């Protein structure tokens, strides 16, 4: 699910940056720090929408660097257990398939694929096939997240399509 939230981040600037373009440097540093970041608490920080406030900097005694508390609003992406989302299949193998929903990769194990869908290794590309549906690389699927684990820089999720209204999207 995509969220819009206000967050705060502390930026430390070396004294050489404390000049007329100080605010610009703070903004640049914020974008760099937040780019490609992912945490258990906030999920993926997709983009900074707006910088709301850059508080007055505080000089750290002894070092001379200045610390700024920046308040900004951002788009976050975080999966939740039992959330249903659409995804694109990226890999298919005999253990199941991987589907991507934005930056998130969801693994759907063969155990959580309906029994009537069988893995066909001989089709090109390999796919899961039943009488009515076929899952191969590029197929759009509706997946329910059964669990998520957060690593240092990424979130891994497992999903299921074994319930009503899940599976291939026409």
């Amino acid at each position: 699910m995509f969220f819009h939230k206000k967050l705060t981040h502390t930026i430390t600037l070396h004294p050489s940056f404390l000049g007329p373009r100080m605010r610009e440097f703070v903004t640049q540093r914020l974008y760099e720090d937040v780019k490609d970041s992912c945490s258990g608490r906030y999920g993926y920080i997709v983009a900074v929408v707006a910088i709301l406030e850059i508080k007055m900097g505080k000089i750290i005694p002894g070092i001379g660097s200045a610390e700024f508390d920046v308040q900004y609003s951002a788009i976050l992406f975080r999966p939740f257990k039992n959330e249903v989302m659409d995804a694109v299949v990226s890999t298919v193998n005999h253990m199941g398939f991987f589907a991507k929903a934005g930056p998130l990769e969801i693994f759907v194990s063969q155990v959580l694929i309906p029994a009537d869908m069988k893995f066909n290794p001989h089709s090109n590309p390999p796919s899961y096939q039943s009488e009515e549906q076929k899952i191969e690389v590029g197929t759009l699927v509706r997946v329910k997240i059964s669990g998520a684990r957060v690593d240092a820089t990424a979130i891994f999720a497992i999903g299921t399509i074994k319930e009503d209204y899940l599976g291939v999207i026409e």
Partner: protein
Amino acid sequence: MSKNKGLSRPPPEESLDAAKLELGEEFQDAECLLISEVKVLLEAQYDGRKDDKEISSVFMKTLEYVQKFSRYTNRDTIKEVRALLKPTNLEPFECAQLGNLCCSEYEEAKSLIPSIGDKISDEDLDSLLKQMDSLKKYQG
């Protein structure tokens, strides 16, 4: 051995559950965005940043995703969908899910978003879904 009373840990991952609408304290009251709204925001940023040396991979992957799955093509339609969802007493998460999944029947909606439960009657949900569907069909 005394327990450290001051320490409060965030709840473990397993206790967060979208089906019960338990999103943890960070997201419980957070504003949820429709995929189409994210598309509008990201495209606006992308236009300004296209010439920058590196755009983050998370941004690009998300942009491709929302462009593929966005249901509503223009801002006016998104505003009207939001206006349709506002008077219901559904939580932001449920409203966003309804806008993203575009179910055709109330059974599908209640099955995919179990937290809705009895918050809205079947007829009201059905009429809401039909209105959202016609907005999608007849958008410019």
